[in-house]
C-alpha cells in the first residue's frame, strides 16, 4: 500500500480565527501571537481546524473543498505550498497514512 501524505492540526485548542472582508486574523494562544492571513489562507486554515473524521486532509481534498470543484494540479500545488507554510509556522503537521 502506498503511503499517502495528509495534513492535520493537533493544536486546534490553541488557535482562534476571525474572518473579515479584508482577511482573517489568527490568534495562537500558546505562542501569544496574532497573525493576519489572506482570505484564501484563512479559509484553508479554517478547513484544517475542521478536521474530517479520519483525522487528516490531503492537499487535493483541501483544494477541492476550497474551490468547490475538481482542482487542477496547479491548484493542488498552491494549496500544498500554503500548507507547507503553515507547517513551518508549527500550526499543522504532515502525517503519513
Amino acid at each position, binding site marked *: 500500500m502506498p503511503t499517502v501524505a495528509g495534513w492535520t492540526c493537533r493544536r486546534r485548542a490553541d488557535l*482562534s480565527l*476571525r474572518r*473579515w472582508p*479584508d482577511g482573517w*486574523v489568527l490568534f495562537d*494562544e500558546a505562542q501569544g501571537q*496574532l497573525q*493576519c492571513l489572506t482570505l484564501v489562507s484563512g479559509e484553508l486554515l479554517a478547513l484544517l481546524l475542521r478536521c474530517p473524521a479520519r483525522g487528516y486532509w490531503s492537499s487535493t481534498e483541501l483544494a477541492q473543498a476550497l474551490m468547490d470543484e475538481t482542482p487542477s494540479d496547479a491548484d493542488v500545488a498552491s494549496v500544498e505550498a500554503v500548507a507547507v507554510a503553515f507547517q513551518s509556522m508549527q500550526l499543522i503537521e504532515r502525517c503519513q497514512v
Partner: protein
Amino acid sequence: MSQETVASLTPVELERRLKRDGIFLRLPPFVFKIQSPIPIVAQGIAELYADYELLADDTEFADFHVSVVYGRRLPRRLCVFELDGQRPFTPLAVGEAFAFLEWGMNWCVTGYCHTLLTLHAAVLERHGRVLIMPAPPGSGKSTLCAALMLDGWRLLSDEMALLDPVTGLVTPAPRPVSLKNGSIEIIRRRAPTASWGPTAHDTQKGTVAHLRASSSSVARATEPGLPGWVVFPQYLADVPAQLLPRPKAASLMQLAQNSFNQHVLGKAGFDALADVIARSDCYDFSYAQLDEALPLFAALPLPS
C-alpha cells in the same frame, strides 16, 4: 446622607489628610488610597477631583495604595512614587509630583488590572456608543479627546480603554486629560474657563498639564458603554482633516498592538478585541486643525 467628595474638604483639611494617613478616593471603577505630604499634589487633587467621592477613613479595602513622597536620602527637590511601599520609578522633581501621581495611577491599572482588557486609547461616548481612539504618544490623541469632551462627548478615559471581556462593554474611568506642550495652549484657548491642575515644566514629555474631566462625565462614571467606533488618529501638520474607512482585519491587528494585556487574557482577550471590531465602524483619521476635526466626529454615523 449625601456622599463626601473632595470638594467637601477645605484645601487645608485636604492637605492635612493627604499628609497624615492619606485619603480613600473612588476613581471609578477603582478605589485608590493616596498619601502625599507634597502641597502640589493636594492642589491638583483639589482642582481636578473635586466631584469625586471620598470614602471614610476606616475603609477596609482599596485597589491600590499609592503615595508620592519626598524621597528619603534624596534632595528635598525630588519625589518618588510608591505602590504598597515599592518604588517602581526613578525620582522626579517635586514640581512634577502631581503628574507623577497621575502617571503612577495609570501604571497601577495597566500593570495590575487583568480582569479587564486594557488598551492605550482615548475613549468617549455619544448617543450610547463608544468611540475608541488607540494611538501612540504624539498622535494628537489627548488633544482631540479634550476637544471632543469640551464639545459634549462623554469622557470615559483619556488614557485607557477598559474593556470587560464578559459583557463586551467599555468601563468608564474618567480622570483628568493629560495635555502636553502646545496642546495646553490650544485647549486653553478653546475653553478659557476650564479647570486645570498644576503645570509641570521640563518633564521628560516637556510641559504637562491636566484638564479636569467634565462634571457630566464624572456623574456617569458607573455607566458602561457599547463600542461603536474605532478611530486611529494621527496629527499631521498642514493636512485637511480626513476620516477614511479602515479594513477590519488590519484594525484588529492595530488595536491588539495597543493592548497592554491581551496576551495575559489569552483567547478571552482576543475574542473581546475581535468583538469590538465586529461591533464598530473603523477609521483612520488625520488632522491638523480641531475646528475641522470636530464636525467630522459630530457627523459620524451610528454603526449598524
